[in-house]
């Protein structure tokens, strides 16, 4: 089976004037379809850089990176955009939704850049929003949604192009524990249905929800082990009306 992520001795060096900073040092890592990997490490350990390289937002300065079997080391910026569009779904700590767009339009965005016609975009985005339990919030703008709801919109956006892997950067970092739990439950549910997920966190409790934990320190891989009994997030399921900050005047 082809690994979704195949990092072969990948390094990433930043040059700050005369100083070289090794964010990643010869990292070897494979993630296979259907896996749910948590990437752990203290701040400055290189976990965000690793996620950026895996998501083709950044290029390695050494080694080779195959994403879904495709060598991405020598691709142009535009080609990387296309790879991100087709193979990667991002979920960020700060949600990163476009504030002017409705939930539906936000979820449509990757399809827009994939050149999918409008009516098809609409249908597909609506499907995904229903899947994350926000069918009744489709025409709300981000500021009309709670943090947990916003993050679920972001998850729907990440899934809309049917990517090879979903990459999440501290997805629960800006959420209260209850909403965080819901988002983790959503990730587990998606993973159960076959979606490959890599999640960056510094929180061991969050990491316990994955099936495999990878540890980073000073840009090196220092730990890689399965989680024998992943902790199940309390699956509240669907949208949660008593979540407070929702106050749209609709």
């Amino acid at each position, binding site marked *: 089976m082809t690994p979704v992520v195949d990092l072969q001795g990948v390094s990433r060096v930043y040059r700050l004037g005369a100083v070289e900073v090794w964010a990643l040092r010869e990292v070897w890592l494979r993630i296979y379809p259907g896996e749910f990997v948590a990437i752990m490490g203290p701040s400055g350990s290189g976990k965000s850089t690793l996620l950026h390289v895996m998501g083709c*937002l*950044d290029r390695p300065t050494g080694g080779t990176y195959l994403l879904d079997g495709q060598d991405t080391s020598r691709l142009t*910026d535009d080609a990387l955009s*296309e790879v*991100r569009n087709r193979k990667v779904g991002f979920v960020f700590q700060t949600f*990163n939704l*476009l504030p002017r767009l409705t939930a539906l339009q936000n979820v449509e965005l*990757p399809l827009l850049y994939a*050149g999918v016609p409008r009516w098809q975009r609409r249908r597909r985005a609506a499907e995904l929003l229903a899947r994350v339990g926000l069918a009744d919030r489709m025409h709300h703008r981000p500021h009309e949604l709670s943090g947990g709801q916003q993050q679920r919109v972001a998850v729907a956006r990440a899934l809309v192009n049917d990517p090879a892997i979903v990459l999440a950067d501290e997805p629960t970092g800006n959420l209260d524990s209850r909403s965080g739990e819901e988002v983790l439950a959503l990730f587990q549910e998606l993973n159960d249905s076959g979606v490959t997920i890599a999640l960056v966190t510094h929180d061991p409790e969050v990491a316990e929800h994955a099936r495999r934990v990878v540890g980073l320190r000073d840009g090196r891989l220092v730990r890689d082990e399965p989680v024998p009994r992943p902790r199940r997030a309390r699956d509240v399921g669907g949208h949660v009306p008593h979540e407070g900050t929702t106050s749209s005047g609709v």
Partner: protein
Amino acid sequence: MIVGLGEAFLVALEALRTNPLRSVLTTLGVVIGVAAVIALVSTGQAARSRVVGEFASLGPDLLWVLPGKAEQGQQFATQEGRFTLTDSDAHAIRREARAVSGVAPWLQTSVEVAAGGRREVTTVIGTTPDYLQVRALQLEVGRFLSEGDGQRRKRVVVLGPVLARQLFRTSELALGGRVVINGRAFEVVGVLRPQGQVLGVDLDDRAYIPFSTAQLLFSVNYASFLFVKAQDTASVLRAKREVERVLRREHGEEDFTVLTQSQFLGALDAILRVLTLALSSIAAISLLVGGIGIMNIMLVSVTERTREIGIRKAVGAKRADILTQFLMEAVAVSLVGGILGMGVGLGASWVISGRLLNQPLSAVSAVPVVVLAFSFSVLVGVVFGVYPAWRAARLDPIQALRYE
């Protein structure tokens, strides 16, 4: 796959709606620029056709003999050789040029004209009896200047109707009255019928005195220029050749210029064209300023939306997508501004040409102006939008996502 232009235009309009005041103010810059260009170009056109029309109404069989030789490719002589034409040239032309039906020398000065305690500063013209026929003037009362007046340098004057009314109240009272011109007393022998205005100049407040008297009065021995009338429209060019032949022989050199009415109109038209162009160029500067306004706002907008750009790139937008998006916003601003400016400009020129110039704006003449304004405003949007858009397109997605 790059997002289509129609889609990008809708996204752009959406973005502009989120900051309405800013969008309106930026658009206003373009509105003013385009309106100014359109108003000046089309008013200039209307003014030109009015002026040319008035000159054309003088008659196609008219020729002008001007002192000095025009340079190759030019229609008017430069200052040198201003005083080469004389009364005897007029006589020679009248004697020998067969295709010519009348010749009138012209000498003009602005002086004070007084009668019975009233004074007017007006144009006094020295000319000969032929002038009446050359310019097809008609008398209200009395007679025009005669050959005898010229030969004896008599101090007689023919008044324009407006001047006659100003000095004597009525034309009848003017006839036989005394007028003091430049300190000398003149007898009024006739009053002309009204001619109206040409180029805003009133032709009816002038005074006409014999050419020889005028030379004496103003102490000069030349004519400003000669009016020549051809026998008919068909013989204009023959008349021109004859006049040139006679004057070459009289002067021994070619120190004069003969212009037909069509040449004169051409030259006049060219001058007005340049004038219109100059005014429009000044107006175009305001369009330029409008463009700079767009660029300024777009640069601000790109900075403010750095994070948005990062997000769009993270989900798969290419450079061209981002470039198109911001370029479209600039073009949308300038296009909307262009359309509004076109309305304002056409409205203004309709008022100006219709009310002030009495020259209704024709739909035909408006078409090139509209096309011009439309393409110009799109051009402004592209030119001033491309740099901010390019800055947006080349942002690094990671940096952009980190931007607060």
